[in-house]
């Protein structure tokens, strides 16, 4: 997955398409379309996955799973600021079709604030329970 923040939706899909094979999707085969609504305009990206081999196009074609949201929400998702499952639960991202793919796709979105678990060298409680 990518750790870069503040990227646009277009840049996110460009980068995804350039990966060729994504091991995190190794078990996935299917297609997902992202419909990103920006006032009156809808931009679409079609993602096809064949056992981890990724293809990205701008085709407006049928897909196993369609995710539809406004641009602000999706900008947040690709920037790692919006958690996609929470957005689905509150209706900010509408899912049509097979949601199974969404579970694997959520692996691709950046995480918000990653810092490694703190490492320090004082040992406190060990010998209990």
């Amino acid at each position, binding site marked *: *997955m990518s*750790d870069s923040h503040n990227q646009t939706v277009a840049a996110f899909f460009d980068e995804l398409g350039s990966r060729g094979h994504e*091991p*995190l999707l*190794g*078990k996935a085969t299917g297609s997902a379309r992202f419909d990103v609504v920006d006032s009156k305009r809808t931009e679409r990206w079609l993602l096809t996955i064949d056992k981890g081999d990724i293809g990205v196009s701008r085709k407006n074609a049928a897909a196993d799973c369609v995710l539809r949201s406004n641009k602000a929400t999706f900008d947040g998702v690709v920037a790692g600021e919006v*958690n996609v*499952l*929470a957005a*689905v*639960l*509150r*209706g*900010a991202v*509408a*899912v049509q079709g097979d*949601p*199974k793919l*969404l*579970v*694997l796709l959520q*692996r691709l979105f*950046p*995480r*918000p*604030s*990653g*810092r*490694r*678990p*703190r*490492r*320090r*060298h*004082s*040992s*406190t*409680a*060990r*010998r*209990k*329970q």
Partner: protein
Amino acid sequence: MSDGIVKILDGNTFVVSDTRGDIEASATDPTGLFSYDTRFLSRWVLTVNGERMNPLSVDDLQYFETRFFLVPGTGTVYVDANLSVIRQRAVGNGFHEKLTILNHADEPVDLSVRLDAGCDFADLFEVKDALEKKGRYSARVKGDKLVLAYDRETFNRSTTISASESARIDKNGLTFKIRIGPHDEWSTQLDVVTALAGLTGRENQDPTGSARRMRRDLERWIDGAPRLESDSDPLKATYRRSLVDLAALRFSPAIAGGRSLPAAGLPWFMTMFGRDSIFTSLQALPFTSELAATTLRALGDWQGVGLDDFRDEDPGRILHEMRYGEMTAFEERPHSPYYGNADATPLYVVLLDEYERWTGDRALVRERELEARAALNWIDEYADIPGGTGYVWYQRRNEKTGLENQCWKDSWDSISYRDGRLPGFPRATCELQGYAYDAKLRGARLARLVWKDPAFADRLEKEAADLKRRFNRDFWVEDGGYFALSSNNGHLLWSGIVDKSKAKAVAGHLLGPRLFSGWGVRTLAEGEGRYNPIGYHVGTVWPFDNSFIAWGLRRYGFKEEAAVVAAGILDAAEFFEGRLPEAFGGYERSQTMYPVQYPTACSPQAWSTGTPLLLLRTMLGLEPQGEFLVIDPALPSAIGRLELLDIPGRWGRIDAFGRGRVEIDTKGR
């Protein structure tokens, strides 16, 4: 019906009502219709000519279906014996209720039948913590339907209520003006249908059809499980109860392709929990491998891939808890999903290996190689929080809504020093090291056997041996002869991390007077600073805990001691009609004579439901060895003859027989 509360459930949808079938929920009590962590009906009250009902009896038909026999009139003085009221209710995409009224008089009768309906759309977290709502309510009459709804920005939850007979519908319910002839009856179907935007995975919109489907599915489930024959009728009843409750607690998240995994328990935990699903799947493996397979897939799919402080997510970490309610939806709670636990990740590898040992299904082990390797990597790369210690630690990064204690004893005061002081963070509890050790050894076996990576296997085995050596040196309390004066000593035996030379002392403590109550092993020993016989994790007896302790005792050859633990827990189950609660009091058995239920314990709860199953395994000494199943019984004498027939596994089906020969002193010791 011990507490005047009636529950029916299907996966994560459930209805809790009083014995009249009525629901009158307050802000903080968990009655109502719940689905996906949201209350979809908080008021559902039946009156006939303005009178409330008086309950005569309640029949639990199925776990998802119940029937209330009622008469109008609540007073003790006068009950109208000329009318009978029957409510038959089944869960499924909301619930479906058939209301029937019988007129026993020789005269016709005119009635006003009223159902009051209302909803607060509370998130289960709010019910638990009594929080305030931020959105807007509405109640609308749409044609012949009443639609109750709650909206907050794009968030929408709604409940649609309709009837098969004509009714006058207003914003607060339905009224039927009816006349019933002499010795005649009237009935209507009531449908309460829930809707939520987003992930539901529930395509079946027909509640009657779903009741039929569930009945068939339950038969298939029971038929597929081994048959139990025994001289002990209570054991047979407990076994049956466990199978049915386990069926009820199965939960089909949208992501599992129609297959099911165990949800944690009613009412607070009807959702996907990493730890609970894994432990329950382990308990159930000799009886069904379906739960394990789905758990491995679902938890694997949701495995952490990045660092997210709000969710305490790390790459490779297995989730702790997933929620679907409003507070999760608005990221006011981190459960989308929350990853803060330190045991589910190593236990994921343990389950994957145990699953292969029972089923021989190497395809799944290959399918989940990536996840298992990431889990093993998490142990070394992310769990050693101080760095360079070689142990598993935990410390939440979400300091507001994350969990302080990320082990199975996850309440705030569960981990303490002997004098009761709470230690600082990070913390490395002993059982976590055992799980990590077991995960490495089992991972090594899978690496050699299935992933064909002997170098990785060698490395894991070396690390495991090193961990065991260090652990037995660093965690051992020499002057006491234990690792900790808590039940987690038993988990250590189960993991195999305990040096042979120390096992006898550890087993002695587990069965000794400070830990063993006569019913089971206490979570914390009597005499410790925080010991409290009704403290959630500091003195109560947890059935699931004891089932793994019994497994651990067997692993080190303490067959009779394992039988003593099994006998105590199974005796306790009799007092709960075969349905073990999450926990019960740690009082001495000789003192109370019956197990005292912990006040707010969840019931049924998945890993308590799985407990009798694992105890059957430990009593019969079932252990897969290559293509065979080893059977080595050590049963309490009170059980007499025990036969478990058609145990499924890589051997096909096999029968196990045993006869009780271990004498148990029921006074405790």
